[in-house]
């Protein structure tokens, strides 16, 4: 290799330093928030004058916060499930199908990822107002499913492309109907892709705020919406505690994904 790490010489130090700086830049705000959530200052002073768990007590003692977290989890779980199911069908037709406009369809299905979120949010809000889905759980789940769809389609499509169709044919010659072959052989073979799709589409909904603000109603609020609302009302360390929990769960899910992928791909 032209750029062999071993042969970089003194540049290695510079490279390590630069990488550390980038990592710090990305991680520091998160670390900062987590530290503040344990700080005793009511005004989020840094460095904190002392340490306390008070904000977490307040957070967990407030039913509106618990409610928001549960709503987030419920909507993210439903959106993820729908996105994976639709993603499976989409991936099969994109990978196996032989029809005109296949590439166009692929592009279309991935547009939620590149479209400015606020444009999408306004469009779907206006549409839902007209058909009476604004502020409902169903509307919320539909909107988040659309946003999560690319995150489901990409890993499933990749897994299906890496799966040799001869294996499915072999199952059919063995006596399995085409449907049975897909259910019992193809799906388990691409389970890493399906699993990644579930996690990523869950997270896509779990920490989404822009569309959620439009979809929310006073009685239907997700955690990010609640955080956003609290930030505007009063800047309390409880928000930092809620944010820390949000980040914490995301972090845990990423670790679980990595571990499971390692286990499954063996």
């Amino acid at each position, binding site marked *: 290799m032209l750029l062999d790490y071993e042969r970089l010489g003194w540049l290695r130090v510079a490279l390590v330093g630069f990488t550390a700086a980038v990592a710090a830049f990305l991680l520091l705000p998160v670390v900062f928030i987590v530290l503040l959530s344990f700080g005793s200052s009511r005004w989020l002073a840094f460095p904190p004058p002392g340490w306390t768990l008070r904000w977490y007590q307040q957070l967990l003692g407030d039913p509106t916060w618990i409610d928001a977290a549960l709503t987030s989890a419920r909507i993210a779980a439903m959106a993820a499930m729908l996105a994976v199911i639709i993603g499976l069908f989409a991936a099969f037709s994109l990978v196996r199908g032989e029809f005109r406009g296949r590439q166009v369809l692929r592009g279309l299905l991935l547009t939620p990822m590149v479209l400015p979120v606020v444009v999408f949010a306004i469009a779907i809000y206006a549409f839902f107002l007209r058909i009476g889905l604004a502020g409902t759980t169903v509307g919320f789940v539909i909107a988040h499913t659309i946003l999560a769809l690319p995150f489901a389609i990409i890993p499933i499509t990749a897994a299906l492309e890496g799966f*040799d169709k*001869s*294996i499915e*044919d*072999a*199952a*059919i*010659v*063995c*006596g*399995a*109907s*085409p449907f*049975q*072959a897909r259910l*019992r*052989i193809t799906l*388990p*073979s691409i*389970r890493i892709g399906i699993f990644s799709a579930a996690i990523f589409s869950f997270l896509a909904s779990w920490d989404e705020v822009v569309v959620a603000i439009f979809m929310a109603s006073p009685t239907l609020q997700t955690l990010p919406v609640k955080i956003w609302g609290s930030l505007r009302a009063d800047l309390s360390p409880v928000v930092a505690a809620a944010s820390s929990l949000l980040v914490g769960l995301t972090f845990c899910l990423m670790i679980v994904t990595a571990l499971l992928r390692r286990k499954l791909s*063996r």
Partner: protein
Amino acid sequence: MTRSFLSIRALRKTFGAFVAVHDVTIDVPKGEFLTFLGPSGSGKSTTLYAIAGFQDPSSGDVLLEDMSLLSVPSHKRNIGMVFQRYTLFPHLSVAENIAFPLRVRRRPDAEIKRKVADMLALVRLENFADRHPGALSGGQQQRVALARALAYDPPILLMDEPLSALDKKLRQEIQAEIRRIHRETGVTILYVTHDQEEALHLSDRIALFREGRIEQIGTGEDLYLRPASEFVAGFIGNSNFLPAEHLQTARGASTIRLADGSIVTGIKTTTSFGQGQRVRLMVRPEAFRLAPGATSAALAVEIIDTAFFGDRRRVMARTAAGDEIDVRPASDAEGADSATTSGKRIFFDPGSAFLFPA
């Protein structure tokens, strides 16, 4: 009514304007090992896939014990198949792979257990039952695939170049396994390959495909010793072709004139040629001698190169007309060791040579 077990009737498959299979008709008796041999794109795999049900033929029929298979979907044909690529189910153990066809048939657990054990013994992988496919070598994977294909006692086993991904030594080992398994189970096997040595080694009969048609069908001996065309002679074994002119044929023996003007008589012919017709004389490399025999014809040549291969020597010769000839005498044949220095003439028995139209 046909008496044969598997019958392929005027099978034809077209892809747009391209005709992949032209009216192929074959009758296969029960228990036969029949190989479809041919270069790639000759229609052999397409024919096999039509029998498996993965290709719908454009016309023609496939009959198993006088019943048409064409209206039966693949998964109900009860056919065994081993593919060119590794097709073990990656998330199932070896034993579960072999059990799969029995599970979809809802056989009782006790029977499945017994059958899996039998099949593992058949392919000699008893100690690998709990392994996953990823932990097996290519050869082991194809043996498991074979066990899986035979687990439900299919009447026919289709094999689509199952050894092409393996190295030569392993290929020969598994060929011997396949022969043994064919002997022990008596299953009817249709085998596709482009490797003529593999076809000769394995088959009862070989159907040689060329451009969607069967050029010749018969035993390996038939194809080697009595090739029906120049294509067959060129595809099976090694051959030397020399341009010649046909002079006359009497009582099945022809006389020709070679390019250097020499006359050869007594070549066995079944086709009739006109006087003066351009023909090609085919002589196998091992049919040449370096010393004259009782009935042999002689060719004046120049020796270009010789090499020693243990049981055989290889001598490259060139005629005055510039045609190169591959000669493979046995190492201990008369005159073989002196070929380098004195070899100016090589000899062959006209009875072992063939004539084809040019």
